[in-house]
């Protein structure tokens, strides 16, 4: 990009949403209705994490709420409406990301009273089950769980759940877990934080089991590192956040545990016996 374009962009950013000095305030962009991550009542772990960061940096905390759908980054972080998104996959191209502060994995969610205990995409039970997966509506999405199931010829067993759900519902991305609870589907394969949180708080007896990676799935990453994201070039803030993460690893771990977020090591999934 030419420097002329850069300055043009900078001009529009600053005028669209004046930047407040980063030292006075931690401006966070977050989804107003997407637990366990965040909501407008600040009941999510991103909200608690933001409070920890703000306290540590000695600044006040403010939010810009925007549903985390298509154009989220364009309308929030890139538009200058905030300075940080509390959670992004490490290395995502729309932001400059901090060091990872946790790593999670896709999980199987099913009712305990079904006794399925599925841990692997190789489980032969899957052939006769209705399996819920998220669809994102993005061009050629490859939700890893879906890729692994397609590889095993289970396309006819898939039940697609729109990850956006219905905006007027509470926490629409949790629809897929509610469908397991009410027996609409037999099992769901979802991203760990979502599956862990809703399975542990459902009135139905649900279990969330991390996927045990099969040799067949070596090319399919089922676990991801998660960082905080700032605008590219905002190295000063990124460095402060990196320092925060280094000094608060155990606080963060406790926080995530309290939201039933399944955590895995950098090597990937655990295969519990």
């Amino acid at each position: 990009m030419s420097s002329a374009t850069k300055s043009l962009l900078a001009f529009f950013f600053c005028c669209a949403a004046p930047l407040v000095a980063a030292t006075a305030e931690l401006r966070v962009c977050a989804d107003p209705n997407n637990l366990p991550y965040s909501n407008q009542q600040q009941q999510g772990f991103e909200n608690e994490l933001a409070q920890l960061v703000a306290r540590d940096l000695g600044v006040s905390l403010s939010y810009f709420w925007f549903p985390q759908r298509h154009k989220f980054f364009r309308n929030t972080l890139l538009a200058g409406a905030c300075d940080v998104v509390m959670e992004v996959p490490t290395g995502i191209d729309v932001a400059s990301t901090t060091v990872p502060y946790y790593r999670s994995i896709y999980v199987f969610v099913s009712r305990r009273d079904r006794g399925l205990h599925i841990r692997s995409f190789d489980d032969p039970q899957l052939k006769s089950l209705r399996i819920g997966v998220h669809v994102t509506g993005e061009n050629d999405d490859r939700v890893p769980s879906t890729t692994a199931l397609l590889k095993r010829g289970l396309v006819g067993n898939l039940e697609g759940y729109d990850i956006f759900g219905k905006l007027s519902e509470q926490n629409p991305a949790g629809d897929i877990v509610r469908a397991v609870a009410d027996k609409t589907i037999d099992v769901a394969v979802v991203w760990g934080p979502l599956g862990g949180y809703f399975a542990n708080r459902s009135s139905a007896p649900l279990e969330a089991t991390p996927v045990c990676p099969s040799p067949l799935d070596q090319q399919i990453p089922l676990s991801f590192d998660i960082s905080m994201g700032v605008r590219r070039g905002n190295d000063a803030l990124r460095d402060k956040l990196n320092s925060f993460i280094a000094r608060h690893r155990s606080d963060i771990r406790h926080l995530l545990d309290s939201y039933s977020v399944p955590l895995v090591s950098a090597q990937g999934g655990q295969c519990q016996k």
Partner: protein
Amino acid sequence: MRIVNGFLFILCMVIPLIGQNAPSPTEVPGSQAGIHLVSPLPTGEWTMPAGDYANTRFSPLSQINTGNVKNLHIVGEMADGIPHGHEGGPLVVDNTLYMVTPFPNYLIALDLTKPGYPMKWKFEPNPDQRSVGIACCDVVNRGASYADGKIIYNTLDANTVAVDAKSGQLVWKTKVGDTDLGETITMAPIVVKDVVLVGDSGAELGVRGKLTALDLKSGKILWRAFNSGPDSDARIGPDFKPFYQKDRGKDLGVTSWTPDQWRLGGGTIWGWISYDPELNLIYYGTGNPGVWNDDMRPGDNKWSITIWARNPETGDAKWAYQIEPHDGWDYDEIMENVLVDMPWQGKTRKLLIHPGRTGFVFVLDRETGEVLSAENFEPVTWAKGYDLKTGLPIENPDKRPHTNHYARGVCPSSTGGKEFVPSSFSPKTGYLYIPAHNTCMDYSGEDVNYIAGTPYLGASVRMYPGPGGYQGELIAWDVANAKKVWSVKEADLPVYSGVLATAGDVVFYGTMDGYFRALDARSGNVLWQMKLSSGIIGNPMTFLGPDGKQYVAIYVGIGGWMGAVALPSVSTDDDYAALGVVGAMKKIKQMTSPGGALYVFGY
């Protein structure tokens, strides 16, 4: 068409052919032998999105012609201050010009009888702000229709409104879709008899595409026809007679998907609707299937990427032709269907002409749905052509992306050989004037994406200019002979505006860098052009003013899917941004800047 007496008097002075009972012609002096236009043409007014039901966008006005078009000058200009894509075009009824803006979807009435065209009123529908975050590709609106004293249009938050054309007061408002489910509306409705016909947008969010019919008087919903699901939902009954075997069978909108996947069926209707008053059928195309990863939805995925023929009053389907079963490239086929009766291989046929994203011009018999011809108008690599016996494309399997197969050199790109921007047909030349793109795309390695708190991988799509050293062109396409006659090329930008052809043998269109241009309809010579204040992605129209003189109007205002790259919030750092179009649109930020306005030209 409602015409006040004084206006009719002026029309009669100018075009003596028009009688009291037949206010608009269907035969144009100087037409090629045997060409018959199926619906009345716009004479002094412009009351519907295309000007005419047949979507020829041809005007019989000829005061402005190849001899004097060089004298065109701006006689009116109005900026609306909205820095988003201005698609569609204005209406002119009863010496009043009506303009619908992008979100927040103001309807502005301008008085053409007074100097400077002062505003009569502005109607503000106050659409739900949340719809801005849902719309996929800029917050555009493609225009309105006039009928029964009302201006009728759709708001981004999936409502249809009818506004009194004189007072600017709301007459009725009907919720047609649910923004909570991701439904928005950007298309322009048409009115047939007492029925308002409305499509939808939002296939990216798993919306089930549908056409909704509303009562013109009350706004009450009369019927709905879905583009997925059982035959009862698609209004398929005993009258349904598709031409091809592949489109016949029970409940194909269910059985051509894996179980229940049709509920996220997509196939929205965000383009144009045509109407043939003689056959009493409407025609429209549908968009991409709902879940974009095509490995997840084995089957034909009906009724995505399909042309429908339906009865406008009952909604019953007459035929359907699925252009591309099991879409793999986002080739929405919601483009205009131009209806013309003309000689075809020695015999007069009732044609439907559809230049599409797939890169082909389809010529169908619109009584039966038979494909008579499918020839490409831009470089195409995804298919070698069409088998007219089966109606199926002859695909190039290497160009279809799959998990672990990154197809490269796929032409056209997802933005198509052309986009929704409508072509125009002149019965005098027999040419269809097509605003075209020449871009290709590569699918490449997977990048981590993130939505609603969930990380996943997405294939990256990069679009870039196609072969031949140009990225867009205005094509004169000889319909009878299915070939390109001439074109005017753009090196760096697609042609992304609508087209207007007139009986003055002039073809008007705009460029994304802001040139409004007039071509000689026969030779393609540039007769006149003027650079305006922003890029053009709207549709030109023409009308007679209160003084009986001909005027031409166009919106400027860069934006839309391809033009969104010019908006300040979209970075050109990343080739893969804005659904991949940034790679093809790098230069636009230097060539124009956003800002919506209406321009009116006189001669």
